[in-house]
Structures are given as C-alpha cells and as structure tokens.
C-alpha cells in the first residue's frame, strides 16, 4: 500500500520517539523488574522482531500497532496465558504463512479469548505471528482502551480494515457470533450462536483461507445471568452482562487451531449460498469444541 510506506530512514532523536514518562518507565522496568518478567519481556521482544511486521522508524505499523506499547500489552497477556489460564494450544502448525482469517467461538464476557489466541500466535507459532483482532465499533470511544487496542495490533472491525489487512498478508481473527456469543449467559455455554455472514464474503473476496479456532474454557471463565439491556443502552454498550464473579475464573484454556479451509465463489452471492459455506465453518468449530470438551478432565485442570 502507498499509505503504508515507512518514511525514509532519518535519524530520530529519542525525544521525538517517546515522552519522558514513557522512557523513565521503560528504564525502571529494565532495572527493577523481577527477572521472570524481564525474561518474558525479552521473549516477547524477540517474537515481535521475528514476526512479519512492517514498522516505520518510530516503531509503528500502518494500522497503529506500536512495538513498545504492544510489548507491554503482550506481557500482561503472556502472564495470563502462562499463569492464570495455563493455556494448552494445539494445531498451530496449521497456521499458513501470509493472509489468513481465523474464525472462533466467542465467550467469556470480555474478549480474553482473542487475547489468548493472540498470545498463542506470538509466543508459540513459528515464525511468530501478530494476530489482529477486529474490535467492536464502540471500543475506540473509550479513552486508553481504544488506544491500547490499536497499539497492540487490533483495529475497528470494519470490512475495509479487514480487506486491507488480509491483502497485506496479515492474520486476522474474527468472531462471527460477536456480542451474541461473548455476552451469552451461563446456561448457553458451548452453544454456538448465530454466525454473521460478513467474514465469508470477505474471505471469498480476498481469497483468504479460513482457519477455524475452538476455545474451550473461556465459556466458563465468567458465569453470567444474561445481559441487562436497559443499562447497556444507557451506557451505550453493546451489552451489560450480569456477571457473578468479579474477575475471570482461573479456568484452563484449550485452544485448537484447525486445518485451513478454502472456499470459492462469488462474494456478492445471495445470503442462502453464503450461509451454506458459513455453516461448514460453524460445523467444524462445533466438532472441535466437542472433541476438546471430551479430552479435558475438568474445568480447572
């Protein structure tokens, strides 16, 4: 992309790159952080430098990802991945190089499933991949949260963003259930909600393989009684889940990446035709979920 060209190398002075507080915090962390954290941070640094990314002189990619901020976000995600959810990941060898659309089940009231899939992509895939989330439209309105979303590599989930990222050879994750899945109640756990059709049209248009991803565990991390619609409307949120736990439970996550699925056809075909293809993906994710539930010995183990 023309818009994505990094500026020609010009020496940047440190004060042009980041503010004084950022630099102080970085120095303090390097000097005082516990060695485990520093090792983890180094592992993440190394993964980011090996991942196929196009960063300019300031460490930004064309979609607002920034190396140093992302490194801190991924540090927290990696701690959750290793210590809180003790994630077991299989099938990452299925992740093809170049453009790929990951499609998963969505659950758990907050999008930690996306964060764990992202951590798996960076920490366990070889070579490491930055997996880019497609955020809800209301997220950019939230100060800092919208900013961290963008700096760690995710974007607002508009079709144009998705097409640009895929054409650029990126790995994009989408949850076609959206909030219908993420904010469903405890009684609906592991029941896939209605899938949107947009992802299939985009995959057909950009000729992108789809990798189904099944997440076992997220569905039990935050039991909810359902969504309180009036309050959600009042706050301008897509849902206001009545969650029973203050923080997500330390369930064990099992992630499974399936074999890539290739689809062909007219991206502007009737819904009926697109639905059949979407159903195939949904079916595959259900199977993987069932197999994952079969394999695990307990929610926390």
């Amino acid at each position, binding site marked *: *992309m023309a818009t994505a060209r990094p500026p020609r190398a010009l020496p940047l002075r440190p004060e042009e790159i980041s503010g004084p507080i950022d630099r102080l915090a970085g120095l303090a962390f390097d000097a005082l952080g516990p060695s485990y954290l520093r090792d983890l941070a180094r592992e993440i640094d190394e993964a980011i430098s090996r991942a196929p990314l196009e960063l300019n002189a300031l460490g930004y990619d064309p979609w*607002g990802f920034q190396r140093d901020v992302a490194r801190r976000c991924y540090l927290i995600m990696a701690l959750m991945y290793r210590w809180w959810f003790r994630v077991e990941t299989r099938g990452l060898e299925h992740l093809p190089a170049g453009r790929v659309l990951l499609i998963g089940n969505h659950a758990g009231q907050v999008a930690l499933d996306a964060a764990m899939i992202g951590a798996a992509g960076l920490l366990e895939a070889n070579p490491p991949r930055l997996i880019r989330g497609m955020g809800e439209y209301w997220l950019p309105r939230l100060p800092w949260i919208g900013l961290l979303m*963008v700096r760690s590599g995710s974007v*607002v989930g508009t079709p144009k963003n998705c097409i*640009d990222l895929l054409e650029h050879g990126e790995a994009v994750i989408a949850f076609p259930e959206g909030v219908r899945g993420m904010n469903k109640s405890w009684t609906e756990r592991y029941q896939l909600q209605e899938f949107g059709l947009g992802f299939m049209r985009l995959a057909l248009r950009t000729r992108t393989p789809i990798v189904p991803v099944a997440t076992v565990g997220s569905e039990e991390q935050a039991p909810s009684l359902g969504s309180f619609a009036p309050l959600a409307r009042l706050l301008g949120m897509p849902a206001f889940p009545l969650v029973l736990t203050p923080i997500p439970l330390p369930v064990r996550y099992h992630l499974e990446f399936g074999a890539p699925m290739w689809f062909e056809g007219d991206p502007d075909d009737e819904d009926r035709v697109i639905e059949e293809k979407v159903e195939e993906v949904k079916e595959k994710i259900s199977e993987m979920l069932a197999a994952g539930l079969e394999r695990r010995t307990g929610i926390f183990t």
Partner: protein
Amino acid sequence: MKVLITGAAGRLGRLVARRLLEDHEVVGLDTSAWPGRPREITLHRADLRKKSTDDVLRREQPEAVVHLASLRHVFDERLRHDVNVGGTRKLLDLCAKHGVRRLVVLSSSYVYGALPENPFYMAEDTGLSVSRHYPEIRDLAELDTLASGFLWHYPEVATAILRPASVLGKRSPSTMSGYLQLEVSPTVMGFDPMMQFIDEEDLARAIVRCVEQKARGVFNVTGGAALPLHSAIRIAGGRALPLPEPLCRALIGMMFRLGFAPAPSDAVDFLKYPCTIDGRAFREATGFVAEHDLLQSLRSVRG
C-alpha cells in the same frame, strides 16, 4: 495551455501558479493582491460571487481551471457558506458555459470526518460524514458534493476532485500546520489517532499533475506514512498537553475565539479518532508519489 487559478494569491495558489508557469500560461483570480508575483502571471482581482468572474472567464477563455479559493475557519459562517458553496456553484456553471476542458477542485480529506468507527485508509467511496460532528465545515462537504455532481454531469470536462490529507508547510496557515505551530498543543487524554500529512509542495505537484494528465475522478492524496498525533507534535518541536476531553474542548474553543487556535472546539474529534485515507487510486491514475520526507516536513513546520 492557459490555466486559470482561483485563490491564486493564497499560499497554495502561489505554489501551484509558479509550478504551472514553467510550461503554461497562468491567469490568477483572487480578491487579495499578490505583491511580487512573477510578471508573466496576470492576476484578476475579482470575487467568485460577482459578475466580474464571468467577465474574466469570457475574456481569458482558459482551457483549465484550478479551483483553490475557499475560506477556512472564519467566524462569519454566512460569508463562508456564500464563498465556498455559492462561489463554487457559480464557478462550476461558468466552467460549463465557457467550455473549460480540465478542472481541478481542491477539497479535503476532512470531509470524511473523524469518527470512532472509521477504518484506517478510507477509500473515495466512503460517505462524507464530517457534518455529523463538525457542522462548521459542512460547507466543505457541500463544495465536494457540488464538484462531484459536476464530474458526472459533464463527462466531457476532465474533472479531478482532490481530497488531501493534512497539509504541512513552513509557517503555513493550514489547519494542521497551525495546530502544530502552537507552543502547547492541547490533546485529549487517552486518545492518540494516526494522522496523515502531505507537504504543500507535494500537493502543488499533485494539482499540476492533474491538470497536465487530464485526470478525472475523486482522489485522496496523501504523503508518507501515517503517524500518531503525539509523535507528530513531538517531531514538529511542540509540546502536547493531554487534557480530559471537556477541558480540551473548552480550551480549544476559547483559543479559537481569541485567534490562537486554527479550528473551533468541534474539531477536537480529529484529535481523538483517525481520518486516514487510502491514496492508491490517485497513485494508480496519475503515478503520483509524494517526494518530501514526512519527518523533514514536520520538523520545518514551525519555521
């Protein structure tokens, strides 16, 4: 080829005029004077809204018209609307009447508006939503829409509508340059949108290229890579002052009324959300690539 430039005495007008002068005959039209202009340039002092503009076109019979005259960020909203919308409509009618063959109209990428759900790299078919949150510059969107109507109505005229990213120039009066020239630039806490820029010299080159290549269509025009707002402020040598949003709006509103800030408080959305554009169509149509280094342009903006 004879080229008529409206707003020729303005900052960008002068750059375009000097460039066109290398190979063409240049006629300017402006309400203001241009002391010290090259002798070869005829400058007609006329108002777009008045009959005198008709006379200028009749007498000069230009083959190409470059429409740069518009008022930005003046207090008198009625005057702005009169000049930007009324003046443009009148000029378009005159172009059709006097057989102009090539037309370049300067719009802006701001017509898309800065909305939270904006994708990065908006293409030209994105809706013009600026008036949703920034009604003061809806006349800019109207100007753009008028020109687009002309583009489809008169296929025999090669009409190019350019929507450039924020324009940078040494002590330039453009909105973004003005903002970057502030001693302290107020920003909104928790927001740091990606921004795109184009050097004024590059924009002038892009305009000349449209005239010479008979480009037809609506085009986004952008310079180098996108950068976040706070980095741009730092590289320009300024200081960002992140404030809670209501405070930032109040401060910018006050600064605008006192003549310090280049835009009113509704422009604060451009400090929160991205308004970044996809420049591919223009590059494919004309082969245009920005030449100025983004970092150098930013560093020189304060002069």
